[in-house]
């Protein structure tokens, strides 16, 4: 009798074991990796402290505070709006783990769309995580999705009608936090996260706010600082400063009629001066080859070299070196520093003085891992 069923039993046990292993691995995606803020940290709250409506959801996320105790301005640095953009999250982590503030305050949100860190984009073949060697070992980080996890917000409408502009976008963009600002308290999860961020900016009287991104080498908006038209001078001052440091950024005005984006709505709905920066990430591009951790971190892909040689499109890709993670993180941190420097010139009454962040050359020389605690 047992003999008759033996193969069934064995197959069942093997399947169950594999199922449990897969479930554990899948479950891990919902556990964020530990971060190790530097000594300057003075507080940590949750985004839901600014808006109850996201409490207990995967959209809730940590907000770190560095308060110098000296009266000044307030900055907000956000990474992970799109968790498939490795340098976005990682730049924020490097800032979090090194920053010290001697005037004013700095808020940091490393996982702006926390829900999107818990899944990856289907059909893209992205690795689930990547590792960075550090001084004392290696740190593993999740590579997430561009949009909110469908387990947290489903289904998508056929056409997304952006609130409150009514601008029509593809249904998928319903889960894109950077199309959801200013958000609304009774909206879908993504809109509620967006609303919570706007509440934080308002309540904490944020003066300058950063939204850090990456994009494909072939899109027109890459290696840029996108600025709100009200704050043109701050952007231009920073671009000249960055150029003197050997880093070229192109200025881009936020289009008035393209809604839901941080650089538009934070500027329209709050008193903050918003900036969005993009680096070139070949692992996100349509022309990429094999999509693995090496491509995410080394950013080297021959297809882009070939594409650039055709001259058909403008391609933001450096043939010799590729677009390695140190270069991308280094650019973002330099961008934050120079924009704050430029802001300080125009707003001397609300100074923000930040220290101890590695500069571009240091990150290029020593690697990102050197500037991660643990």
């Amino acid at each position: 009798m047992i003999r008759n069923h033996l193969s069934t039993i064995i197959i069942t046990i093997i399947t169950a074991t594999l199922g449990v292993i897969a479930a554990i691995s899948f479950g891990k995606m919902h556990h964020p990796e530990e971060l190790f803020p530097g000594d300057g940290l003075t507080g940590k709250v949750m985004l839901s402290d600014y808006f109850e409506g996201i409490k207990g959801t995967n959209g809730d996320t940590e907000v770190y505070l560095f308060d110098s105790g000296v009266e000044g301005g307030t900055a907000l640095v956000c990474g992970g709006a799109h968790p498939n953009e490795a340098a976005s999250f990682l730049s924020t982590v490097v800032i979090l783990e090194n920053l010290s503030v001697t005037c004013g305050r700095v808020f940091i949100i490393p996982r702006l769309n926390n829900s999107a860190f818990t899944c990856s984009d289907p059909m893209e073949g992205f690795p689930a995580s990547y590792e960075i060697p550090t001084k004392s070992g290696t740190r593993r980080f999740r590579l997430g999705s561009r949009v909110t996890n469908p387990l947290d917000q489903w289904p998508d409408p056929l056409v997304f009608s952006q609130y409150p502009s009514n601008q029509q976008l593809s249904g998928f963009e319903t889960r894109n936090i950077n199309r959801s600002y200013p958000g609304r308290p009774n909206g879908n999860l993504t809109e509620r996260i967006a609303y919570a961020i706007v509440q934080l900016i308002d309540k904490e009287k944020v003066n300058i706010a950063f939204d850090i991104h990456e994009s494909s080498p072939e899109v027109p908006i890459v290696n840029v600082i996108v600025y709100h038209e009200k704050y043109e001078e701050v952007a231009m001052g920073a671009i000249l400063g960055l150029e003197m440091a050997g880093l070229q950024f192109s200025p881009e005005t936020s289009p008035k009629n393209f809604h839901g984006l941080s650089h538009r709505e934070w500027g329209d709905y709050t008193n903050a001066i918003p900036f969005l920066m993009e680096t070139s990430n070949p692992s996100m591009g349509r022309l990429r080859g094999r999509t693995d951790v090496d491509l995410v971190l080394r950013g080297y892909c021959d297809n882009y070299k070939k594409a650039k040689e055709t001259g058909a499109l403008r391609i933001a890709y450096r043939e010799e070196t590729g677009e390695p993670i140190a270069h991308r993180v280094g650019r973002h941190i330099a961008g934050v520093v120079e924009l704050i420097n430029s802001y300080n010139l125009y707003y001397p009454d609300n100074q923000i003085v930040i220290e101890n962040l590695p500069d571009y050359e240091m990150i290029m020389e020593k690697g990102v891992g050197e500037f991660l605690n643990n």
Partner: protein
Amino acid sequence: MKTRISTIVTILILFFAGSSLLAQKFEQPVLISSAGQSADVKLVKMLAQRQDLNATTVLMAKSEDLTGFKTLVIVPGFSSKGLGAAGISQQDELERVRSLINAANDLKIPIVLMHIGGNARRQGQSDSFNQLVADNSKFMLVVKQGDEDGFFSSIARAKNIPLTLVEKIAESAEPLGNLFK
């Protein structure tokens, strides 16, 4: 007699030398405009301010806007965000630039090309604007990275247009100011 002739010759030489130098001078007030709506034009506006130029920036200047100006500075470079902000197509923008250039040529208002965006404002959709403005300019001021393939220098050579190349955007402020001194 001999001294007289030599004096006249000297004066004539000085006169022609002077006028050829004068040909490279431009007069204020200056109208600054974009071709392709990249925000680089905002940087040029800032540089012009730092050089104390009597300059007005009109992103989408039309022929009528030329009234009262003695020099037109055009900053070419394509930006989809910029065109989006202006709510116009690339074709509309090309048409606008073409008619602005034609009007300036009719009014004998010299055009200065200022390309500061490096390779970010080259190739792809930028070069149609770069070409159009370069072909019609009386002077070109270009940040070197934008001329790595010799795009601007070959136009300058072919059309005998003076070209100044600088390493960095910030270094373009002085030569810009000098055009009007």
